[in-house]
């Protein structure tokens, strides 16, 4: 089992939904995808590299061979996969505190979902629906989402500074350099091992 690869945690969860309710969830996701401001909280949390929700209709579990027994299910299922920085507790706490309305709109339609507030029954529900990751790979194991975003800002600033500072006198260069340093100074955090306890 390897839910964690250095600074990133791979979470999987599956929840049952009555078939007629999945259309409501689909409609919500359609709106969430189309209206970008609705994703503001998710973006501002800034510790999720990638996340996805996948609805599987009860009759649509892959059937790859004629001899494979066919699934006969009563429920559709909502799968959730997330790649986030920090601990499971930090993640669920932040979800509950910041995204409670959005989460309720998504999981309210799953069987026996208790709501994302208060957090204790919410955590119990997630723990029950979660299953462990057997193998996890990340291309940048020592970098958080914030590190990645900051690094791209530094790269962009450096590229711009390189162009701008070409053919300048030493004095002009030094002035531009100071502006460059001021621009990137907040984005120079160092990547490395995750803090102890995460």
């Amino acid at each position, binding site marked *: 089992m*390897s839910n964690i690869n250095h600074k*990133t945690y*791979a979470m*999987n969860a599956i929840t*049952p939904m009555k078939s007629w309710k999945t259309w409501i969830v*689909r409609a919500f*996701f359609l709106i969430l*995808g189309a209206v970008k401001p609705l*994703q503001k909280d*998710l*973006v501002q949390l*800034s510790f*999720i*590299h*990638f*996340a*996805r929700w*996948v609805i599987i209709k009860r009759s649509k*579990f*892959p059937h*790859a*061979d004629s*001899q*494979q027994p066919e699934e006969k299910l*009563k*429920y559709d*299922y909502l*799968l959730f*996969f997330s*790649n986030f920085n920090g601990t499971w507790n930090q993640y669920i706490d932040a979800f509950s505190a910041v995204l409670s309305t959005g989460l309720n709109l998504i999981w309210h339609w799953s069987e*026996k979902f208790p709501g994302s507030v208060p957090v204790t029954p919410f955590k119990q529900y997630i723990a*029950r629906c979660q*299953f462990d990751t*057997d*193998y*996890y*790979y*990340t*291309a*940048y*194991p*020592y*970098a958080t*989402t914030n590190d*990645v975003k*900051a*690094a*791209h800002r530094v*790269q962009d600033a450096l590229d711009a500074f390189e162009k701008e500072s070409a053919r*300048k006198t*030493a*004095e002009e*260069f*030094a002035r531009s350099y100071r502006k460059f340093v001021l621009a990137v100074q907040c*984005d*120079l955090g*160092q*990547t*490395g*091992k995750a803090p102890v306890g995460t």
Partner: protein
Amino acid sequence: MANQSGDVYGLTILSPILQDLTAETSHNCAIRMKLASMPGDESSPFAKVSSTHMARLVVMDDVVYVGMPSCEEHLKSQYLVFETNFDGELDEYLTRMAREIPADVDALWQHCWGYPGTKDVAAFIAYMKKCQITTTFYFADVNNHTVQETLTALQTQAAVAEFIERNQGKAAAELQIAFAHFLEKLRKAPPPVPGRPEKGGPPRIETNMKWATRNAANTKQVTPNE
């Protein structure tokens, strides 16, 4: 399409796992043993398929029962779940998997119903697509940069921090020359390696950034009795 966010593709595959009651090692167990032996760093097969940002493989044993009054039900097969986030198009990615890491792919998916192997790339792609589930909603925080661009940016970030620290207080002319050398060195640096958990992130140009520890050492410790 919800499988994509910007330039990043989110692939979700559920492959039904074979059942054989007479097998000495069950197929799901064989998959788990193989997964446990696979490295998660730069030696990972997914580091070879270098457009992979993040990937996971999971054996899903069953659906969950959340208690009364919902109904208890069970899957007839276990499923190998493959969740990956990569740059570019699906066909190209699956082709790379079949051509660049065939041994690992075959070792895992040979335990699944209907798996055709990687030798026939077209059949492999068709099989994977048959087992693909369309993502309903996909979120990628950074969706406009490739893996290589991100690794290069992380390398640049570390190098810039070190350059700024080393060149504080230098005269303008000296600073300009140092910066030109720095850029040249940065451009010639070897490309960062995906998946490498190296201190300071991806390989750095220079590795003597000690301001944090130096500052800590210079800070006088104040005890409550002082």
